[in-house]
């Protein structure tokens, strides 16, 4: 009896300790976003008042910063650009990666191991190593300073990553299913499209989500290859073009950061589990 009570007390203590321990981590993770949102809703007079408590909105919520963002800047164009770039680059990369991933995971031919290694090495090459020469490649292709510069270059990091992730998913599909289809007279392409792909849907969803997130969030190439305001992505537009001269207008900057993050937040909330599993699969298998 006594033991039971004590162990229950110990359990509660450990639970309380666990929650208390978690609070600093959660606060650390979330505070910048909270601060982003309240800054975007505050009056300038309150933002730049040293006596005001920065954690609260004391003099009323306003939407002026958002109105400024939508009607006085090219923000909506940037959002449109980001959307086009992300959708096109992700779809193209997905098709290329499905073909390559299936080939590397399932088919036996000479050099398959070498190709797999090549994809993996490319997966680990950071964009910051290649942005200088790629900026010239883009000039030679005649697409510099357009959204095409990004649509063409984003697959360089999307395809290796997606291929690597999809290989893992393809390997989990039992070989017998495919062999049955082949014996029944289906061609290899039909087997891939009608038998394998439907079974790899979770992997495809995962790759699509990650692809969209990575392209939407990309900063280095988007900053380097595009300098014309009308062709910028949302992330670069907000970071680079909302600052007029050397003055930072924090209200509208944070409003821009909030709205430009929103598509990712929405997808993230809906598909949280895919993010966790994709992150784990991509890194641990990688």
């Amino acid at each position: 009896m006594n033991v039971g009570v004590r162990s229950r007390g110990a359990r509660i203590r450990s639970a309380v300790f666990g929650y208390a321990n978690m609070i600093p981590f959660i606060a650390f993770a979330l505070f910048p976003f909270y601060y982003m949102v309240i800054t975007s809703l505050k009056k300038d007079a309150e933002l730049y008042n040293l006596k005001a408590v920065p954690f609260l909105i004391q003099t009323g919520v306003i939407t002026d910063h958002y109105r400024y963002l939508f009607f006085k800047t090219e923000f909506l164009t940037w959002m449109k650009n980001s959307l086009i770039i992300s959708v096109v680059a992700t779809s193209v990369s997905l098709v290329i990666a499905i073909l390559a991933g299936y080939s590397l995971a399932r088919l036996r031919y000479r050099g398959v191991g070498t190709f797999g290694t090549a994809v993996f090495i490319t997966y680990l090459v950071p964009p910051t190593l290649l942005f200088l020469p790629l900026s010239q490649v883009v000039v030679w292709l005649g697409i510099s300073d357009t959204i095409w510069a990004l649509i063409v270059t984003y697959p360089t990091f999307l395809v290796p990553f997606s291929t690597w992730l999809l290989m893992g998913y393809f390997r989990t599909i039992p070989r017998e299913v495919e062999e049955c289809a082949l014996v029944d007279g289906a061609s290899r392409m039909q087997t891939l499209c009608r038998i394998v792909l439907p079974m790899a849907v979770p992997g495809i969803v995962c790759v699509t989500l990650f692809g969209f997130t990575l392209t939407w969030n990309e900063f280095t190439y988007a900053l380097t290859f595009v300098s014309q305001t009308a062709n910028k992505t949302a992330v670069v537009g907000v970071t680079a073009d909302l600052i007029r001269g050397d003055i930072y207008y924090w209200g509208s900057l944070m409003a821009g950061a909030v709205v430009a993050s929103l598509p990712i937040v929405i997808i993230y909330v809906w598909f949280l589990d895919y993010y966790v599993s994709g992150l784990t699969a991509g890194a641990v298998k990688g």
Partner: protein
Amino acid sequence: MAIGERALEATELARPSRLARVREWWEQEHVFGYSLIVPALALIVGLVAYPFGMAIYFSLSDYWVGSPGQFIGLRNFWEILGNEIFQQTVYNTFVFALIAVAFKTVLGVWLAMLLFRDFKFKRLIRGAVLLPWVIPTALSVLAWGWMFDSLYSVVNWTAIHLGLINPPGPNWLGLTGYAVTAVIAVNVWRGLPFFAIIVLAGLVSIPREYYEAAEVDGAGSWGRFRHVTLPLLKPVLAVVILFSTIFTFSDFNIVQVLTRGGPVNTTHLFATLAYQIGLTGGNLGQGAAVSLFLFPLLGAFVFLQLRYIRRE
């Protein structure tokens, strides 16, 4: 006339059979395999391998934006090695990566252990913790820039009101030591979720029986952590530390948005210095040489990683 008809018949017969032959040829495993890998391979060769070769060529030439230069051998590299800003950058990069990865490892394992327990709102809390990793880095770093503002810093406001520092508090992004601290803090903030989630996956895969056995042997919670958790986490930790080191070494976004390498170049990393020299300054040759210094470091990591995977 009859010959004509014959000829027509013959071609009509030949056409489907040729198509069938092509189809048959394509159905062979190796042909099909090669043809599926071609688009990906073309992309890797054309937009990764070729630009990489170009980077090497740039670094060996006197190449400026708009004017293809001449081959000058290793002069760019000698000039860079003698350049004080570059030496500072090498120092920054190692200090930055070492401290940031150390913090991410310790806090990441700690956070993963916390997330591993059974608790309410598990999914919600995991989602919240992973958020910094998902949101566009450039935008969240912008918010950090505002939090470290020279006049209205919320960090200083909090510290002043807790009585930790005297008003007005430091200008975080304008003072040498403080700027480095700020950049490291933001990097840890952004990289911690990645660490925690992957270590968590590692924790989940440890069989429960090991803990029970250790408990029977009288191991306390620290003993269980040291002798069961840590050794079994080693493979996962090795992978995640390698990945994180690569990301940290090649980081661009955080420094570019927060400090642009300043004050007095104390926060420059290879990528931001390469950007400044190669694009802002227009000296592509030297910029490429700077970014290529990343390569041997990354090459070593990739080599270790590949060897590790083979051994598994």
